[in-house]
């Protein structure tokens, strides 16, 4: 008999920000700024024709990746979607080798074989960015199964969008994680659009936590633009997972301030929506909070911002200088 849980469980307490040290909060702010600056730079590189294919940018959603990944420990794993630069950087992947991968360089994280949609840095637990919607959820379930079978307390985080909750792999993964009580954090970034379609056009429930209910899975809906709220939810979910209490579904409400991909100007947005969300920009909110709570001064915050901008600019400049892969290297890494 599976114990019944409420789909919107009150067991996850609201943000306990006092648990996050000042240093940790500033580290999160810095990482968020790095991601924002990284994505802005990628957008410029695309516009200048330096990057091939397409890209899916993360501006406006930084609090979800950073809040979640800063609740993790070494040994934990993460998978994400093709909108994954932010999550991979949040795990601690180096800026320069991340740029280099997107630029198709030999020193890229994946030796130039993956590109924007497949950023991976296994060394920091970033198991992969996956370009087929929903495909990575079962893979994180497998990483969690491995953690359980190896008798570790590692957890597996998987980030996905609201659109992924309509594909079969999502449901199979949720179900398997629930019946086997696997240490998974299903982090749904509800950015209100699945590709070009607003969520109401594709999904009959407005609160996606309802979907966790059918798998008797703990769930919580948080303000995805509030990095401390996300951090708190993720820390609680990770603690539950490490204690053997199985998976949690976190619905982080956020907004994609850019189009779906490079070719999407996002003209389908209702008037005023973008501006409304820009006023709730996660970086703006966090900086305001840090000042209001007297955690950091205006000058300290400015220093963090400048440090992040400089690190990104340096990394981009470095990566651009690096050589292309040797043509023969294309035959390597097919088989072990």
């Amino acid at each position: 008999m599976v114990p019944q849980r409420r789909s919107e469980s009150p067991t996850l307490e609201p943000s306990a920000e006092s648990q996050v040290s000042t240093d940790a909060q500033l580290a999160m702010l810095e990482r968020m700024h790095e991601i924002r600056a990284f994505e802005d730079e990628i957008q410029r590189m695309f516009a200048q024709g330096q990057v091939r294919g397409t890209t899916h940018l993360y501006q406006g959603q930084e609090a979800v990746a950073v809040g979640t990944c800063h609740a993790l420990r070494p040994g934990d794993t993460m998978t994400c979607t093709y909108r994954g630069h932010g999550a991979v950087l949040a795990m601690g992947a180096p800026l320069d080798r991340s740029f280099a991968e997107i630029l198709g360089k030999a020193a890229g994280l994946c030796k130039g074989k993956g590109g924007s949609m497949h950023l991976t840095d296994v060394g920091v637990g970033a198991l992969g960015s996956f370009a087929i919607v929903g495909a990575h959820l079962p893979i994180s379930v497998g990483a969690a199964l491995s953690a359980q079978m190896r008798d570790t307390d590692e957890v597996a985080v998987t980030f996905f969008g609201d659109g992924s909750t309509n594909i079969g792999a999502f449901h199979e993964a949720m179900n398997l994680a629930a019946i086997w009580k696997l240490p998974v954090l299903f982090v749904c970034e509800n950015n209100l659009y699945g590709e070009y379609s607003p969520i109401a056009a594709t999904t009959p429930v407005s609160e996606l936590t309802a979907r966790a209910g059918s798998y008797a899975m703990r769930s919580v809906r948080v303000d995805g633009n509030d990095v401390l709220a996300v951090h708190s939810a993720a820390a609680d979910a990770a603690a539950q997972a490490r204690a053997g209490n199985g998976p949690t579904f976190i619905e982080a409400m956020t907004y994609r301030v850019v189009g779906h991909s490079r070719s999407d100007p996002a003209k389908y947005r209702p008037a005023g929506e973008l501006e409304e969300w820009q006023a709730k920009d996660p970086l703006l909110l966090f900086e305001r909070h840090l000042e209001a709570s007297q955690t950091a001064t205006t000058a300290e915050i400015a220093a963090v911002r400048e440090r992040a901008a400089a690190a990104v600019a340096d990394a981009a400049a470095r990566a651009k200088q690096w050589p292309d892969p040797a043509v023969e290297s294309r035959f390597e890494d097919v088989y072990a």
Partner: protein
Amino acid sequence: MTELTYRDAINAALYDELDSDPAVFLLGEDIAAAGGVFKVTEGLFERFGPLRVRDTPISEQAIVGAALGAAVTGMRPVAEIMFADFAGVCFDQIANQMPKYRYMTGGQVSVPVTLRLVNGASGGFGAQHSQAVENWFLGIPGLKVCTPSTPADCYGLLRSAIRDDNPVLFFEHKGLYALTGEVDRAATVPLGRADVVRAGDAATVVATQAMRILAQTAANELAGQGIEVELIDPRSLAPFDFDTVSQSLTKTNYLVVIEEGPGRASWATTLITRMVQDHFELLDGPPALISTDDIPIPYAAVLESAWLPSVSEIVTAVRQLVLS
């Protein structure tokens, strides 16, 4: 050496790998408590317990995806797809995820996943439970594919597949589960190496699984007529041991390929193309392709047997080729 059925040889390989490597585990639908719908995994749950022999929901995407996620984090999973036809519902995991994961990450991971898929016709299971679907996967770099025909090859190839650090699709032909043969539990069979089942100089006959068994009967019949064919079982389709076939052609100069499938976009057509392209001078006549009818697999016994190649078809094709 022990005499085992094809089914029990697979069971023995799973047993021996579970016993020798704690990273190995099994997952699939009804493989644990029930011992598998074809009874291939019988007794393993009792011996190795519910953590290492795991019943899953009917969720092929989750089965293959979880195997993949476990494989890249230190485990060595063996997942069962109860009927190979169900690969259709987890095609993304098999075609897009498993074979490309290592490559797209620049070699950051290895992917030691074995998928056991139950293949093949002749049991009256109809069009969605009878296909030999190995050809669906042959155009995908990054996968290895085995199609064993004998108990010894089942045992030896499965152990090699599980120990391999790459994704391997291991197709078991359900029509052969009761076949018996000698098995050496100290021996493995390397992936990618063909077996010359029978030596001869009249024609090179290449066949896998149930078609290989038919071809053996046909070869005996032809021998009675003074025609000695060389029978080759590729055993693995990816990588494919083209050299063993071309070496045989230097002796026989005729090629006959038999396949349980419509003979389009297949290992058989690839083999013929390759031999014509690279070894045209070795051929004294056009290669013969014996395949099924180009239709879905019918249910009724008379229809299904008519759909499959037969011994007499093979005998006739070889005679036409070598006596022309």
